Protein backbone atom coordinates (compact mmCIF):
# COMPACT_ATOMS: atom_id res chain seq x y z
CA UNK A 1 0.00 0.00 0.00
CA UNK A 2 1.15 3.51 -0.77
CA UNK A 3 2.46 5.72 2.00
CA UNK A 4 -0.32 7.71 3.67
CA UNK A 5 -0.54 11.42 3.04
CA UNK A 6 -1.05 12.41 6.67
CA UNK A 7 -2.06 15.92 5.69
CA UNK A 8 -5.30 14.57 4.29
CA UNK A 9 -6.27 12.83 7.53
CA UNK A 10 -7.64 15.83 9.53
CA UNK A 11 -10.28 16.67 6.88
CA UNK A 12 -11.33 13.05 6.78
CA UNK A 13 -11.57 12.75 10.57
CA UNK A 14 -13.95 15.70 10.81
CA UNK A 15 -15.93 14.57 7.81
CA UNK A 16 -16.23 11.10 9.32
CA UNK A 17 -17.51 12.50 12.61
CA UNK A 18 -20.26 14.33 10.72
CA UNK A 19 -20.96 11.39 8.40
CA UNK A 20 -19.69 13.17 5.34
CA UNK A 21 -16.72 10.98 4.41
CA UNK A 22 -16.74 9.15 1.10
CA UNK A 23 -15.97 5.46 0.69
CA UNK A 24 -12.41 6.06 -0.44
CA UNK A 25 -11.84 8.51 2.40
CA UNK A 26 -13.08 6.00 4.95
CA UNK A 27 -10.73 3.36 3.60
CA UNK A 28 -7.82 5.79 3.85
CA UNK A 29 -8.87 6.64 7.40
CA UNK A 30 -9.05 2.95 8.34
CA UNK A 31 -5.65 2.39 6.88
CA UNK A 32 -4.33 5.18 9.09
CA UNK A 33 -6.16 3.81 12.14
CA UNK A 34 -4.64 0.37 11.56
CA UNK A 35 -1.20 1.91 11.68
CA UNK A 36 -1.02 2.29 15.44
CA UNK A 37 -2.86 2.32 18.71
CA UNK A 38 -1.96 5.96 19.17
CA UNK A 39 -3.81 6.83 16.00
CA UNK A 40 -6.92 5.08 17.27
CA UNK A 41 -6.71 6.94 20.56
CA UNK A 42 -6.22 10.22 18.77
CA UNK A 43 -9.29 9.58 16.63
CA UNK A 44 -11.34 8.69 19.71
CA UNK A 45 -10.13 11.81 21.53
CA UNK A 46 -11.19 14.11 18.69
CA UNK A 47 -14.52 12.28 18.32
CA UNK A 48 -15.31 12.85 21.99
CA UNK A 49 -14.20 16.49 21.77
CA UNK A 50 -12.93 16.27 25.31
CA UNK A 51 -11.16 19.59 25.69
CA UNK A 52 -13.38 21.36 23.20
CA UNK A 53 -14.09 24.52 25.17
CA UNK A 54 -10.47 25.00 26.19
CA UNK A 55 -9.34 24.74 22.60
CA UNK A 56 -12.14 26.94 21.32
CA UNK A 57 -11.27 29.67 23.82
CA UNK A 58 -7.64 29.63 22.86
CA UNK A 59 -8.54 29.67 19.20
CA UNK A 60 -10.85 32.65 19.58
CA UNK A 61 -8.37 34.56 21.70
CA UNK A 62 -5.78 34.74 18.91
CA UNK A 63 -5.89 38.19 17.36
CA UNK A 64 -5.35 37.41 13.74
CA UNK A 65 -6.31 40.89 12.54
CA UNK A 66 -3.33 42.34 14.39
CA UNK A 67 -1.08 39.62 13.01
CA UNK A 68 -2.33 40.36 9.52
CA UNK A 69 -1.35 44.02 9.90
CA UNK A 70 2.08 43.08 11.17
CA UNK A 71 2.70 40.78 8.22
CA UNK A 72 1.64 43.46 5.78
CA UNK A 73 3.91 46.02 7.36
CA UNK A 74 6.83 43.64 7.07
CA UNK A 75 6.03 42.80 3.46
CA UNK A 76 5.65 46.41 2.42
CA UNK A 77 9.19 47.08 3.59
CA UNK A 78 10.55 44.57 1.14
CA UNK A 79 10.84 44.68 -2.63
CA UNK A 80 7.95 42.65 -3.87
CA UNK A 81 6.86 40.88 -5.92
CA UNK A 82 9.81 39.20 -7.58
CA UNK A 83 7.72 38.12 -10.52
CA UNK A 84 5.65 40.64 -12.39
CA UNK A 85 3.53 38.65 -14.79
CA UNK A 86 2.19 41.72 -16.57
CA UNK A 87 5.62 43.07 -17.45
CA UNK A 88 6.64 39.66 -18.44
CA UNK A 89 3.78 39.33 -20.90
CA UNK A 90 4.22 42.78 -22.39
CA UNK A 91 7.92 42.23 -22.83
CA UNK A 92 7.36 38.87 -24.37
CA UNK A 93 5.10 40.31 -27.04
CA UNK A 94 7.29 43.32 -27.57
CA UNK A 95 10.29 41.11 -28.14
CA UNK A 96 8.44 39.03 -30.66
CA UNK A 97 6.69 41.78 -32.56
CA UNK A 98 9.10 44.69 -32.76
CA UNK A 99 12.65 44.56 -33.96
CA UNK A 100 13.76 47.78 -32.15
CA UNK A 101 12.55 46.15 -28.99
CA UNK A 102 15.31 43.61 -29.06
CA UNK A 103 16.72 45.61 -26.18
CA UNK A 104 13.56 44.73 -24.30
CA UNK A 105 14.41 41.09 -24.60
CA UNK A 106 17.51 41.79 -22.56
CA UNK A 107 15.29 43.15 -19.80
CA UNK A 108 13.10 40.12 -20.31
CA UNK A 109 16.01 37.86 -19.60
CA UNK A 110 16.75 39.74 -16.42
CA UNK A 111 13.22 38.92 -15.32
CA UNK A 112 13.76 35.37 -16.43
CA UNK A 113 16.82 35.22 -14.25
CA UNK A 114 14.83 36.18 -11.17
CA UNK A 115 12.16 33.69 -11.93
CA UNK A 116 14.60 30.90 -12.53
CA UNK A 117 16.21 31.67 -9.23
CA UNK A 118 12.98 30.92 -7.39
CA UNK A 119 12.69 27.66 -9.27
CA UNK A 120 16.26 26.80 -8.45
CA UNK A 121 15.49 27.47 -4.82
CA UNK A 122 12.63 25.05 -5.01
CA UNK A 123 15.00 22.21 -5.85
CA UNK A 124 18.07 23.11 -3.92
CA UNK A 125 16.93 24.70 -0.71
CA UNK A 126 14.53 23.11 1.71
CA UNK A 127 12.43 22.21 -1.30
CA UNK A 128 9.16 23.95 -0.41
CA UNK A 129 7.34 22.10 -3.13
CA UNK A 130 8.37 18.85 -1.58
CA UNK A 131 8.73 17.23 -4.98
CA UNK A 132 9.06 13.49 -4.89
CA UNK A 133 9.36 12.95 -8.61
CA UNK A 134 10.71 14.74 -11.66
CA UNK A 135 8.35 17.62 -12.38
CA UNK A 136 7.77 19.73 -15.43
CA UNK A 137 7.01 23.40 -14.78
CA UNK A 138 5.22 25.18 -17.56
CA UNK A 139 6.00 28.72 -18.61
CA UNK A 140 4.13 30.75 -16.01
CA UNK A 141 5.74 28.86 -13.16
CA UNK A 142 2.45 27.88 -11.62
CA UNK A 143 1.58 24.75 -13.54
CA UNK A 144 3.37 21.62 -12.48
CA UNK A 145 3.26 18.19 -14.02
CA UNK A 146 4.53 15.23 -12.04
CA UNK A 147 6.20 13.13 -14.73
CA UNK A 148 5.62 9.87 -12.86
CA UNK A 149 1.88 10.44 -12.59
CA UNK A 150 0.99 12.46 -15.61
CA UNK A 151 -1.08 10.95 -18.36
CA UNK A 152 0.93 10.77 -21.62
CA UNK A 153 -1.85 12.37 -23.66
CA UNK A 154 -2.26 15.23 -21.20
CA UNK A 155 1.46 15.90 -21.26
CA UNK A 156 1.53 15.96 -25.04
CA UNK A 157 -1.51 18.20 -25.21
CA UNK A 158 -0.06 20.71 -22.78
CA UNK A 159 3.58 20.77 -23.83
CA UNK A 160 4.05 18.78 -27.01
CA UNK A 161 6.41 16.40 -25.18
CA UNK A 162 6.14 12.63 -25.38
CA UNK A 163 7.01 10.16 -22.68
CA UNK A 164 9.56 7.67 -23.94
CA UNK A 165 9.34 4.08 -22.77
CA UNK A 166 11.92 2.86 -20.29
CA UNK A 167 14.15 4.94 -18.13
CA UNK A 168 12.59 8.28 -17.12
CA UNK A 169 12.63 10.04 -20.47
CA UNK A 170 10.65 12.65 -22.32
CA UNK A 171 11.13 13.94 -25.83
CA UNK A 172 10.04 17.08 -27.69
CA UNK A 173 9.38 16.48 -31.35
CA UNK A 174 10.36 19.38 -33.57
CA UNK A 175 7.51 18.66 -36.00
CA UNK A 176 4.92 18.81 -33.23
CA UNK A 177 6.13 21.85 -31.34
CA UNK A 178 7.23 24.01 -34.26
CA UNK A 179 3.95 25.52 -35.38
CA UNK A 180 1.81 25.17 -32.33
CA UNK A 181 1.59 28.54 -30.67
CA UNK A 182 -0.54 27.12 -27.87
CA UNK A 183 2.41 25.44 -26.22
CA UNK A 184 4.13 27.56 -23.60
CA UNK A 185 7.47 28.73 -24.92
CA UNK A 186 9.56 27.81 -21.90
CA UNK A 187 9.49 24.65 -19.82
CA UNK A 188 11.56 23.79 -16.78
CA UNK A 189 12.30 20.24 -15.77
CA UNK A 190 12.99 19.92 -12.05
CA UNK A 191 14.62 16.73 -10.84
CA UNK A 192 14.42 16.26 -7.05
CA UNK A 193 16.97 14.52 -4.89
CA UNK A 194 17.30 10.77 -5.42
CA UNK A 195 16.17 11.00 -9.08
CA UNK A 196 17.75 11.27 -12.52
CA UNK A 197 15.81 12.21 -15.65
CA UNK A 198 16.48 12.19 -19.40
CA UNK A 199 15.17 14.66 -21.91
CA UNK A 200 15.46 15.06 -25.68
CA UNK A 201 15.00 18.69 -26.69
CA UNK A 202 13.28 19.68 -29.94
CA UNK A 203 16.64 20.05 -31.75
CA UNK A 204 17.58 16.47 -30.87
CA UNK A 205 19.97 17.41 -28.05
CA UNK A 206 19.98 14.76 -25.34
CA UNK A 207 20.35 15.81 -21.71
CA UNK A 208 20.60 13.63 -18.62
CA UNK A 209 19.72 15.72 -15.56
CA UNK A 210 21.16 14.65 -12.22
CA UNK A 211 19.49 14.74 -8.80
CA UNK A 212 18.57 18.11 -7.22
CA UNK A 213 18.90 19.93 -10.54
CA UNK A 214 16.77 21.78 -13.03
CA UNK A 215 16.94 22.68 -16.71
CA UNK A 216 14.98 25.48 -18.33
CA UNK A 217 14.62 25.39 -22.12
CA UNK A 218 12.40 26.68 -24.90
CA UNK A 219 10.00 24.11 -26.29
CA UNK A 220 11.10 25.25 -29.72
CA UNK A 221 14.40 26.99 -30.43
CA UNK A 222 14.25 30.27 -32.30
CA UNK A 223 16.47 31.06 -35.27
CA UNK A 224 19.57 32.63 -33.74
CA UNK A 225 20.63 30.40 -30.90
CA UNK A 226 19.69 27.59 -28.58
CA UNK A 227 19.61 28.94 -25.05
CA UNK A 228 19.02 26.82 -21.92
CA UNK A 229 19.55 27.41 -18.20
CA UNK A 230 20.90 24.90 -15.76
CA UNK A 231 21.09 24.62 -12.00
CA UNK A 232 22.84 21.59 -10.58
CA UNK A 233 24.35 18.93 -12.80
CA UNK A 234 23.62 17.57 -16.26
CA UNK A 235 25.26 15.61 -19.05
CA UNK A 236 24.73 17.12 -22.49
CA UNK A 237 24.93 15.48 -25.87
CA UNK A 238 24.29 18.48 -28.10
CA UNK A 239 22.94 17.92 -31.62
CA UNK A 240 25.18 19.48 -34.27
CA UNK A 241 23.93 22.71 -35.82
CA UNK A 242 26.62 25.10 -37.01
CA UNK A 243 24.22 27.98 -37.48
CA UNK A 244 22.71 27.87 -34.04
CA UNK A 245 25.14 27.80 -31.14
CA UNK A 246 23.87 25.97 -28.07
CA UNK A 247 24.37 28.13 -24.97
CA UNK A 248 24.04 26.97 -21.38
CA UNK A 249 23.71 29.64 -18.69
CA UNK A 250 24.48 28.57 -15.15
CA UNK A 251 25.27 30.67 -12.12
CA UNK A 252 26.48 33.60 -14.20
CA UNK A 253 28.63 31.46 -16.49
CA UNK A 254 27.95 30.78 -20.18
CA UNK A 255 28.97 27.61 -21.95
CA UNK A 256 28.78 27.83 -25.72
CA UNK A 257 28.93 24.85 -28.05
CA UNK A 258 28.05 23.80 -31.58
CA UNK A 259 27.69 20.05 -31.21
CA UNK A 260 29.41 17.97 -28.58
CA UNK A 261 29.25 15.82 -25.43
CA UNK A 262 30.08 17.20 -22.01
CA UNK A 263 29.13 17.34 -18.34
CA UNK A 264 28.33 20.46 -16.28
CA UNK A 265 28.18 20.44 -12.49
CA UNK A 266 26.95 23.69 -10.98
CA UNK A 267 25.21 23.08 -7.67
CA UNK A 268 24.46 26.17 -5.61
CA UNK A 269 25.99 24.52 -2.56
CA UNK A 270 29.32 23.77 -4.26
CA UNK A 271 32.11 26.32 -4.56
CA UNK A 272 32.94 25.51 -8.16
CA UNK A 273 31.28 25.11 -11.51
CA UNK A 274 32.92 22.19 -13.28
CA UNK A 275 32.62 21.65 -17.03
CA UNK A 276 34.10 18.43 -18.41
CA UNK A 277 34.39 17.91 -22.16
CA UNK A 278 34.12 14.41 -23.62
CA UNK A 279 33.87 15.09 -27.35
CA UNK A 280 33.89 18.08 -29.73
CA UNK A 281 34.69 21.53 -28.37
CA UNK A 282 33.14 24.03 -25.99
CA UNK A 283 33.75 27.63 -25.03
CA UNK A 284 33.33 28.68 -21.41
CA UNK A 285 32.64 32.35 -20.67
CA UNK A 286 32.44 34.38 -17.49
CA UNK A 287 32.17 38.11 -17.95
CA UNK A 288 34.90 38.88 -20.44
CA UNK A 289 37.03 35.80 -19.73
CA UNK A 290 36.82 33.02 -22.30
CA UNK A 291 38.30 29.56 -22.38
CA UNK A 292 38.10 26.85 -25.04
CA UNK A 293 38.24 23.18 -24.05
CA UNK A 294 39.57 20.17 -25.94
CA UNK A 295 38.24 16.64 -25.32
CA UNK A 296 39.42 15.31 -21.96
CA UNK A 297 39.86 18.81 -20.58
CA UNK A 298 38.00 20.31 -17.70
CA UNK A 299 37.27 23.94 -16.81
CA UNK A 300 36.80 24.82 -13.16
CA UNK A 301 35.28 28.14 -12.21
CA UNK A 302 35.92 29.11 -8.62
CA UNK A 303 32.84 31.09 -7.72
CA UNK A 304 34.34 33.11 -4.88
CA UNK A 305 37.50 34.15 -6.68
CA UNK A 306 35.80 34.42 -10.05
CA UNK A 307 38.69 32.71 -11.82
CA UNK A 308 38.78 29.80 -14.26
CA UNK A 309 41.37 27.01 -14.32
CA UNK A 310 41.82 24.27 -16.90
CA UNK A 311 43.20 20.75 -16.55
CA UNK A 312 43.29 17.30 -18.18
CA UNK A 313 41.13 14.73 -16.37
CA UNK A 314 39.90 11.18 -16.53
CA UNK A 315 36.43 12.14 -17.80
CA UNK A 316 34.81 8.95 -16.57
CA UNK A 317 35.13 10.20 -13.00
CA UNK A 318 32.80 13.07 -13.80
CA UNK A 319 30.25 11.35 -16.01
CA UNK A 320 29.77 7.95 -14.35
CA UNK A 321 26.80 9.22 -12.32
CA UNK A 322 24.58 8.97 -15.37
CA UNK A 323 25.18 5.21 -15.50
CA UNK A 324 24.13 4.78 -11.87
CA UNK A 325 27.53 4.75 -10.24
CA UNK A 326 30.17 7.13 -9.00
CA UNK A 327 33.87 6.68 -9.58
CA UNK A 328 36.17 8.47 -7.16
CA UNK A 329 39.86 9.13 -7.49
CA UNK A 330 41.28 10.71 -4.38
CA UNK A 331 38.15 12.57 -3.37
CA UNK A 332 37.44 13.59 0.23
CA UNK A 333 34.55 12.28 2.29
CA UNK A 334 32.77 15.63 2.37
CA UNK A 335 32.51 15.74 -1.39
CA UNK A 336 31.59 12.03 -1.60
CA UNK A 337 28.86 12.44 1.03
CA UNK A 338 27.44 15.49 -0.76
CA UNK A 339 26.84 13.30 -3.79
CA UNK A 340 25.44 10.48 -1.71
CA UNK A 341 23.11 12.95 0.02
CA UNK A 342 21.71 14.02 -3.34
CA UNK A 343 21.40 10.41 -4.46
CA UNK A 344 19.36 9.21 -1.53
CA UNK A 345 17.78 12.48 -0.39
CA UNK A 346 19.32 12.58 3.06
CA UNK A 347 20.92 15.37 5.03
CA UNK A 348 24.48 14.73 6.20
CA UNK A 349 25.75 15.63 9.69
CA UNK A 350 29.25 15.21 11.09
CA UNK A 351 29.90 14.26 14.65
CA UNK A 352 33.58 14.78 13.99
CA UNK A 353 34.67 17.41 11.47
CA UNK A 354 37.96 15.58 10.89
CA UNK A 355 36.07 12.75 9.22
CA UNK A 356 35.61 15.03 6.23
CA UNK A 357 39.31 14.62 5.42
CA UNK A 358 39.22 10.90 4.65
CA UNK A 359 40.08 10.43 0.98
CA UNK A 360 38.66 7.84 -1.35
CA UNK A 361 39.49 6.00 -4.50
CA UNK A 362 37.12 3.51 -6.07
CA UNK A 363 33.64 2.96 -7.41
CA UNK A 364 30.31 3.18 -5.63
CA UNK A 365 27.21 1.66 -7.17
CA UNK A 366 23.83 3.21 -6.64
CA UNK A 367 22.12 0.51 -4.62
CA UNK A 368 18.45 0.63 -3.81
CA UNK A 369 19.24 1.28 -0.19
CA UNK A 370 21.61 3.81 1.26
CA UNK A 371 22.85 1.45 3.94
CA UNK A 372 24.44 -0.84 1.34
CA UNK A 373 26.40 2.06 -0.09
CA UNK A 374 27.45 3.37 3.31
CA UNK A 375 28.42 -0.13 4.46
CA UNK A 376 31.12 -0.18 1.82
CA UNK A 377 32.54 3.07 3.19
CA UNK A 378 32.27 1.74 6.73
CA UNK A 379 34.34 -1.29 5.75
CA UNK A 380 37.11 0.87 4.40
CA UNK A 381 37.28 3.40 7.22
CA UNK A 382 37.05 3.88 10.93
CA UNK A 383 33.68 5.52 10.51
CA UNK A 384 30.21 4.63 11.59
CA UNK A 385 26.96 5.87 10.05
CA UNK A 386 23.74 6.42 11.91
CA UNK A 387 21.02 6.32 9.31
CA UNK A 388 17.46 7.55 9.62
CA UNK A 389 14.95 8.15 6.83
CA UNK A 390 16.12 11.71 6.34
CA UNK A 391 19.55 12.03 7.93
CA UNK A 392 22.97 10.42 8.18
CA UNK A 393 25.18 11.15 11.17
CA UNK A 394 28.85 10.33 10.65
CA UNK A 395 30.91 9.26 13.68
CA UNK A 396 34.30 7.78 14.48
CA UNK A 397 33.97 4.17 15.67
CA UNK A 398 36.23 4.15 18.74
CA UNK A 399 35.27 7.61 19.92
CA UNK A 400 32.01 6.39 21.31
CA UNK A 401 33.70 4.70 24.26
CA UNK A 402 35.54 7.82 25.33
CA UNK A 403 32.34 9.88 25.62
Amino acid sequence: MKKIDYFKIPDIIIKKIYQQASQSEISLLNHWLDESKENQELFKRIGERKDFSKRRNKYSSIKDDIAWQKINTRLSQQPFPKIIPLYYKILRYAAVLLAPFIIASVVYYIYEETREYTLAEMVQESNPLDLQEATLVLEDGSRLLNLMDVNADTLQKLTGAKILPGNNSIRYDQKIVRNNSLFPKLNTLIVPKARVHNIVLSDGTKVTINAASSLQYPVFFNDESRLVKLTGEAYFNVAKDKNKPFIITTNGMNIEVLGTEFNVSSYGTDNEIVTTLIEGSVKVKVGTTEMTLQPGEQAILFKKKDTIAKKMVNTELFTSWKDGRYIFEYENLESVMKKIGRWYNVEIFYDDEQAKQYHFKGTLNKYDEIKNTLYIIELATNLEFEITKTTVLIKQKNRKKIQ
Partner: protein
Amino acid sequence: MGNHNIFIGKETTTFKNIFDMYYKGLCLFAQSYSLEMEQAEDIVQDVFVKICEKNVAFTSKSSLKSYLYQAVKNNITNTFRKQEVHRKFKDWIRNKPEEEKIFFQTMIEEDSYRILFQAIDKLPDRPREVILLSLEGMKNQEIADFLSISLNTVRTHKAKALKLLKNHLGHLNPMIFVLLFILPE
Protein backbone atom coordinates in the same frame (compact mmCIF):
# COMPACT_ATOMS: atom_id res chain seq x y z
CA MET B 1 -0.65 42.80 -0.57
CA GLY B 2 -3.56 40.71 0.60
CA ASN B 3 -4.72 40.25 -2.94
CA HIS B 4 -1.48 38.62 -3.90
CA ASN B 5 -2.31 35.34 -5.66
CA ILE B 6 -1.23 31.93 -4.52
CA PHE B 7 -1.49 29.02 -6.90
CA ILE B 8 -2.74 25.74 -5.61
CA GLY B 9 -2.82 23.25 -8.44
CA LYS B 10 -5.20 24.64 -11.02
CA GLU B 11 -6.86 26.93 -8.52
CA THR B 12 -5.85 30.41 -7.52
CA THR B 13 -6.61 31.92 -4.18
CA THR B 14 -5.44 35.01 -2.35
CA PHE B 15 -2.77 35.16 0.27
CA LYS B 16 -5.32 36.63 2.68
CA ASN B 17 -7.58 33.62 2.22
CA ILE B 18 -4.85 31.22 3.20
CA PHE B 19 -3.95 33.38 6.15
CA ASP B 20 -7.56 33.37 7.38
CA MET B 21 -7.81 29.63 7.02
CA TYR B 22 -4.59 28.64 8.71
CA TYR B 23 -3.18 31.37 10.93
CA LYS B 24 -4.91 30.57 14.23
CA GLY B 25 -4.66 26.83 13.75
CA LEU B 26 -0.93 27.05 13.09
CA CYS B 27 -0.43 29.21 16.19
CA LEU B 28 -2.07 26.52 18.33
CA PHE B 29 0.03 23.87 16.63
CA ALA B 30 3.23 25.82 17.34
CA GLN B 31 2.17 26.39 20.91
CA SER B 32 1.83 22.66 21.47
CA TYR B 33 5.64 22.48 21.12
CA SER B 34 5.67 24.13 24.56
CA LEU B 35 6.05 27.68 23.32
CA GLU B 36 4.54 30.89 24.70
CA MET B 37 1.71 32.16 22.51
CA GLU B 38 3.68 35.27 21.61
CA GLN B 39 6.62 33.19 20.42
CA ALA B 40 4.27 30.88 18.52
CA GLU B 41 2.66 33.82 16.75
CA ASP B 42 6.04 35.25 15.74
CA ILE B 43 7.07 31.95 14.22
CA VAL B 44 3.85 31.57 12.25
CA GLN B 45 4.06 35.16 11.00
CA ASP B 46 7.57 34.48 9.72
CA VAL B 47 6.27 31.57 7.70
CA PHE B 48 3.55 33.68 6.06
CA VAL B 49 5.99 36.45 5.21
CA LYS B 50 8.26 33.90 3.59
CA ILE B 51 5.52 32.39 1.45
CA CYS B 52 4.64 35.81 0.15
CA GLU B 53 8.25 36.76 -0.54
CA LYS B 54 9.21 33.56 -2.23
CA ASN B 55 6.13 33.33 -4.37
CA VAL B 56 5.75 29.65 -3.73
CA ALA B 57 3.28 27.63 -5.81
CA PHE B 58 1.65 24.47 -4.52
CA THR B 59 0.59 21.36 -6.37
CA SER B 60 -2.45 20.65 -4.18
CA LYS B 61 -4.24 21.63 -1.00
CA SER B 62 -2.50 18.88 0.82
CA SER B 63 0.92 20.10 -0.33
CA LEU B 64 0.05 23.60 0.89
CA LYS B 65 -0.90 22.20 4.27
CA SER B 66 2.22 20.08 4.37
CA TYR B 67 4.34 23.13 3.58
CA LEU B 68 2.72 25.27 6.30
CA TYR B 69 2.99 22.75 9.11
CA GLN B 70 6.51 21.60 8.15
CA ALA B 71 7.71 25.18 7.85
CA VAL B 72 6.33 26.07 11.29
CA LYS B 73 7.94 22.98 12.77
CA ASN B 74 11.28 23.71 11.09
CA ASN B 75 11.24 27.26 12.43
CA ILE B 76 10.60 25.89 15.90
CA THR B 77 13.46 23.41 15.67
CA ASN B 78 15.72 26.18 14.39
CA THR B 79 14.82 28.26 17.42
CA PHE B 80 15.55 25.35 19.74
CA ARG B 81 18.74 24.64 17.88
CA LYS B 82 20.03 28.16 18.39
CA GLN B 83 19.20 28.04 22.07
CA GLU B 84 20.86 24.84 23.07
CA VAL B 85 23.01 24.11 20.15
CA HIS B 86 24.96 20.96 19.91
CA ARG B 87 23.87 18.39 22.45
CA LYS B 88 20.19 18.94 22.00
CA PHE B 89 20.51 18.84 18.23
CA LYS B 90 22.24 15.50 18.31
CA ASP B 91 19.54 14.06 20.52
CA TRP B 92 17.08 15.42 18.07
CA ILE B 93 18.67 13.65 15.13
CA ARG B 94 18.77 10.41 17.06
CA ASN B 95 15.11 10.73 17.94
CA LYS B 96 14.12 11.71 14.46
CA PRO B 97 11.70 8.80 13.77
CA GLU B 98 10.00 9.44 17.11
CA GLU B 99 10.03 13.16 16.44
CA GLU B 100 8.39 12.67 13.08
CA LYS B 101 5.62 10.62 14.63
CA ILE B 102 4.91 13.31 17.20
CA PHE B 103 4.84 15.90 14.46
CA PHE B 104 2.17 14.07 12.48
CA GLN B 105 0.10 13.27 15.56
CA THR B 106 0.13 16.89 16.72
CA MET B 107 -0.57 18.18 13.25
CA ILE B 108 -3.55 15.82 12.83
CA GLU B 109 -5.08 16.77 16.17
CA GLU B 110 -4.61 20.53 15.80
CA ASP B 111 -5.63 20.60 12.17
CA SER B 112 -8.81 18.60 12.83
CA TYR B 113 -9.91 21.23 15.33
CA ARG B 114 -8.92 24.00 12.96
CA ILE B 115 -11.18 22.52 10.27
CA LEU B 116 -14.04 22.13 12.74
CA PHE B 117 -13.65 25.70 14.04
CA GLN B 118 -13.50 27.06 10.52
CA ALA B 119 -16.73 25.31 9.64
CA ILE B 120 -18.40 26.55 12.83
CA ASP B 121 -17.28 30.13 12.22
CA LYS B 122 -19.10 30.10 8.90
CA LEU B 123 -22.48 29.48 10.59
CA PRO B 124 -25.04 32.25 11.21
CA ASP B 125 -24.90 33.76 14.73
CA ARG B 126 -27.65 31.95 16.61
CA PRO B 127 -27.10 28.42 15.25
CA ARG B 128 -23.38 28.92 15.90
CA GLU B 129 -23.96 29.95 19.49
CA VAL B 130 -26.19 26.93 20.08
CA ILE B 131 -23.88 24.39 18.48
CA LEU B 132 -20.87 25.75 20.37
CA LEU B 133 -22.65 25.34 23.70
CA SER B 134 -23.77 21.89 22.70
CA LEU B 135 -20.23 20.92 21.70
CA GLU B 136 -19.02 22.18 25.05
CA GLY B 137 -21.26 19.56 26.58
CA MET B 138 -24.48 21.41 27.47
CA LYS B 139 -27.84 19.62 27.21
CA ASN B 140 -30.58 21.23 25.10
CA GLN B 141 -32.54 22.30 28.19
CA GLU B 142 -29.43 23.89 29.71
CA ILE B 143 -28.81 25.80 26.50
CA ALA B 144 -32.43 27.01 26.49
CA ASP B 145 -32.06 28.25 30.05
CA PHE B 146 -28.67 29.79 29.39
CA LEU B 147 -29.82 31.74 26.34
CA SER B 148 -33.36 32.32 27.64
CA ILE B 149 -35.01 30.80 24.59
CA SER B 150 -37.48 27.97 24.23
CA LEU B 151 -36.41 24.34 23.99
CA ASN B 152 -37.93 24.14 20.53
CA THR B 153 -35.93 27.09 19.30
CA VAL B 154 -32.76 25.41 20.58
CA ARG B 155 -33.67 22.29 18.63
CA THR B 156 -34.35 24.27 15.44
CA HIS B 157 -31.06 26.19 15.67
CA LYS B 158 -29.14 23.04 16.41
CA ALA B 159 -30.68 21.17 13.50
CA LYS B 160 -29.94 24.09 11.21
CA ALA B 161 -26.36 24.30 12.45
CA LEU B 162 -25.78 20.59 11.92
CA LYS B 163 -27.28 20.73 8.46
CA LEU B 164 -25.09 23.66 7.41
CA LEU B 165 -22.05 22.13 9.05
CA LYS B 166 -22.53 18.84 7.24
CA ASN B 167 -23.19 20.62 4.00
CA HIS B 168 -19.97 22.59 4.37
CA LEU B 169 -17.91 19.58 5.39
CA GLY B 170 -19.34 17.52 2.55
CA HIS B 171 -17.83 20.00 0.15
CA LEU B 172 -14.38 19.84 1.66
CA ASN B 173 -12.30 17.87 -0.71
CA PRO B 174 -8.86 16.83 0.37
CA MET B 175 -8.81 13.98 -2.13
CA ILE B 176 -9.02 16.03 -5.29
CA PHE B 177 -6.19 15.23 -7.57
CA VAL B 178 -4.90 18.18 -9.39
CA LEU B 179 -6.04 18.47 -12.94
CA LEU B 180 -3.75 20.64 -14.93
CA PHE B 181 -4.84 22.85 -17.73
CA ILE B 182 -3.47 25.76 -19.63
CA LEU B 183 -5.94 28.03 -21.32
CA PRO B 184 -4.80 29.57 -24.56
CA GLU B 185 -4.50 33.29 -24.09
